[in-house]
């Protein structure tokens, strides 16, 4: 298990590296730097700013630094490598490994990306976890009910909720909900400043909408997984032993049918805590997603890179957690790894 875990964790590193590379490459394709303003900025000023943020360095590799160093008689391969990597990308990666994601440009370098993440992510995290909790606490029972009362009104309700929930995009439901609330009840959720500290009612509406897709997905998956398990021989065995419905469901069916549900839960939760740009935008949640969308508009390279890497890492961690929980639920997996 330990070896397996370490291997999985190590596998994340090259993935993150390539993600960083791709993002960096794409951002370099975009015209317009972080210091392009509508009004003229003095070229000297831009130059200074570029130098401060290391944007005067070559993008990928710094061959001039290497040749300069070797001209100066530097032979230490480590130094030469460092000079070779004294590029925008190289420096970024080297700093990122040390946990420094660089200064954000939009703050004129006054704040580091990791600080922004530290400041804003808890809000997104709370929103995402609430949404996930909602998705699980509603989706599971709904799916179980649907499967147990197959072809009854419960089943149809659970199916309809699941189909609509999975198909209608959250931003549509979100927008329609805000529209509905404001038209019918005249409610426009403007939140007091501290509404987003800790948990508060402010999170209810966005979390409901955000969790809707996942909830529906869990409902569907739970339902089909329960139906699948219901057909299994060991359920027949349990019934043949005279076990009552409650025992059969709770002891024999639930855990088995949870296995596929857990598989999607990791990525889903990771997606919920990271993928809430649209919801954050609609409900004015001051989270990391909203920050990210803004940073793309302002060409804040380091913020974009940092957020992308951070999100990719979260997704990877989500999957890793699934692997662990998986083993917890299924003894066959546990003993294999």
């Amino acid at each position, binding site marked *: 298990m330990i070896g397996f875990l370490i291997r999985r964790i190590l596998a994340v590193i090259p993935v993150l590296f390539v993600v960083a590379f791709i993002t960096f490459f794409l951002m370099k394709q975009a015209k317009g730097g972080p210091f*392009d303003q509508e009004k003229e900025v003095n070229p000297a*000023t831009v130059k200074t700013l570029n130098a401060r943020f290391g944007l005067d360095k070559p993008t990928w590799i710094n061959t001039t630094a290497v040749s300069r160093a070797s001209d100066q008689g530097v032979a230490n391969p480590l130094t030469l490598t460092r000079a070779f990597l004294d590029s925008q990308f190289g420096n970024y990666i080297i700093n990122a490994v040390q946990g420094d994601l660089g200064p954000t440009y939009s703050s004129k370098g006054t704040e580091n990306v990791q600080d922004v993440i530290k400041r804003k992510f808890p809000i997104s*995290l709370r929103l995402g976890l609430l949404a996930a909790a909602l998705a699980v606490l509603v989706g599971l029972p709904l799916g179980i009910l649907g499967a147990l009362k197959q072809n009854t009104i419960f089943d149809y309700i659970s199916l309809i909720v699941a189909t609509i929930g999975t198909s209608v995009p959250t931003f549509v439901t979100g927008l329609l909900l805000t529209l509905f609330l404001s038209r019918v009840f005249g409610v426009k959720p403007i939140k007091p400043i501290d509404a987003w500290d800790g948990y508060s009612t402010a999170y*209810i509406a966005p979390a409901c909408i955000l969790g809707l897709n996942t909830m529906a997905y869990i409902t569907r998956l739970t339902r089909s997984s329960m139906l699948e398990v219901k057909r299994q021989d060991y359920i027949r065995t349990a019934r043949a032993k005279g076990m009552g419905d409650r025992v059969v469901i709770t*002891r024999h069916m639930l855990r088995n049918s949870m296995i596929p549900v857990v598989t999607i839960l990791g990525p889903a939760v990771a997606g919920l805590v990271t993928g809430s740009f649209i919801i954050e935008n609609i409900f004015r949640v001051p989270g990391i997603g909203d920050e990210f969308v803004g940073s793309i508009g302002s060409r804040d390279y380091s913020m974009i890179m940092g957020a992308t890497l951070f999100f990719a890492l979260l997704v990877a961690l989500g999957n890793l957690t699934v692997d662990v*929980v998986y083993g917890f639920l299924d003894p066959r997996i546990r003993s294999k790894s």
Partner: protein
Amino acid sequence: MRKRMIALFALLVLILPVLAACGAATPTTAPAATTAPTAATGGEATAPPVADAPTTAPTDVPAAAPTDAPADPPTAAPTSAGNVLRIHQVAYPDVFDPQKSSYSGEIVLLSQNYEGLTRLDENLETVPAAAESWEYNADATVITFTLRPDLKYSDGSPLTAENFVYAAQRNCDSATAGEYQSILFDLAGCADFASSVVTDTAAYDAAKAGLGVSAPDANTVVMQMAQPAPYFHTVASLWVMYPAKQEMIEKGGETWWQDPEAQIGNGPFQFSSIVEDQQIDFVRNDNYWNPAKLDGLSFIYIDDSSVALEAYKSGQLDIFSPDPSQIPAVQEDAELASLYVAYEGANTTGLQFNTKLAPFDDLKVREAFAYALDRETYCEVIRNADCLQTLTWIPKGIPGYDADETRFAFDEAAAKAALAESSYGSADALPEITMMYATNDPANQARHEFVANTFRDVLGVEVTLQGLPSKDVSAAKKDNATYPQLSLGGWIGDYPDPQNWVSVFWNSNATFAQRQGYGNPAADELMKVGDTSTDQAARIAAYQEAQKIIIGDLPIAPMYNRVNKYVINPRVTGYAMTPADDQFPGQWSSTSISITE
């Protein structure tokens, strides 16, 4: 066995400590259970947010107490919302550091906290501020400011000429690299200092020493110009000259400005609380020489205008800036309509031609397009009257405004005639024309479609629209090679002097004019008179004359002035509206605003 059964739920429970850790970073309530978001902090929307905001310390750890302990700690906040003006703002500012800020949303904050040597009054005239008087030498190359006696910062510490020298130095310093460095380039040595290399210590120090600003005594600031600059007293009112305290900046590092206690100012108000993305509060600075009537100001950031409208309706805002799309809704509501004010702003937008590229290298083609612009319908219907049509460059309310300009008004026949007279002769002969615009505002598309449709219907010209993110548009417009054939663009004044409108933009050595391929020696001559003469009347006349030439040459077909538009709670009084009020009405004379119950 049962323990394992609930493994999943256990996992959820395990996540809670993580939440707790996150929650702990904020000083408010401990996190509630995941299922109980109702166990929340104070009820929403009941108390105005301003009431508890200043006492709720922001997440920033305050810097160590300043050595000269402030006499009036910023925690002494207004106790009731009653006398605090709550202003709706759309976008939270990136940075509000006097020598680094560049957006009006940033500047409006600084202008409440600080004051320059001079300031603009309600008529946008430059009047004494920290300096009680100033004097040019004969050729307007040296300007001497005399400060008011006994000026104090809000913490009671003295404000002297050195503080202004520091502001100028810091702005021109290449290490600062503020985006508005160049606005002080009339100051001798500023351009050199801004391009010096910090690591080259000797040259850097020399450049610093060469900066033409000095304080012969505590009450006098002398500025040496690189060339005549008879408008420089107006420049001295700008935010780049705001005297932020050197020790605070040096102590606080790059982020010093995020700490309200470091932003010790000399303006009518004083930062008291900064909550990022949410709200920024000010309290009255009682050390200001002209104390304000309000107890404080609250800038409340809501970028969803729809939400802001509801906030206004529920009494959480005193001043609301509607989005153009909301104007119909505001006008449909009898009460809101009566409180809605709209007045022209200090900005001009026109149809910008790239005169280096065919077909707009042909004046007749430009004329045809200028005549074809149905400015009135555009402003009235497409923009919901959030703009007023104009045919001239300098907007109303700014010295140099030319009310008599009537050339190129909407005239379909004239448009067709001009096109027929052009070297192309007909629409079919024209090369492909692309019009570029920024997509960030959803309404922009409809607006540009209207313009393009107009050209098609009036002139028979097919204009291709190219919508890009605003960053790409500004990047394209910055490069002579990629400057678009056709686009809507213009100028928002930095300071109310025609020099800022005419010379800065249209002089043949100005980058803006060069990008469009414009330059007219006759106009340049007139601008030179305006830029150097110390006779204000003569200056303005010269600029107006230059403006007539420029409009005739049509590098731009002026189209409209966007209005400043607000819904203002009737309890707010005493604000003087100026064209430069792009953040709230009366922003340049906030001391006179008061709130009546």
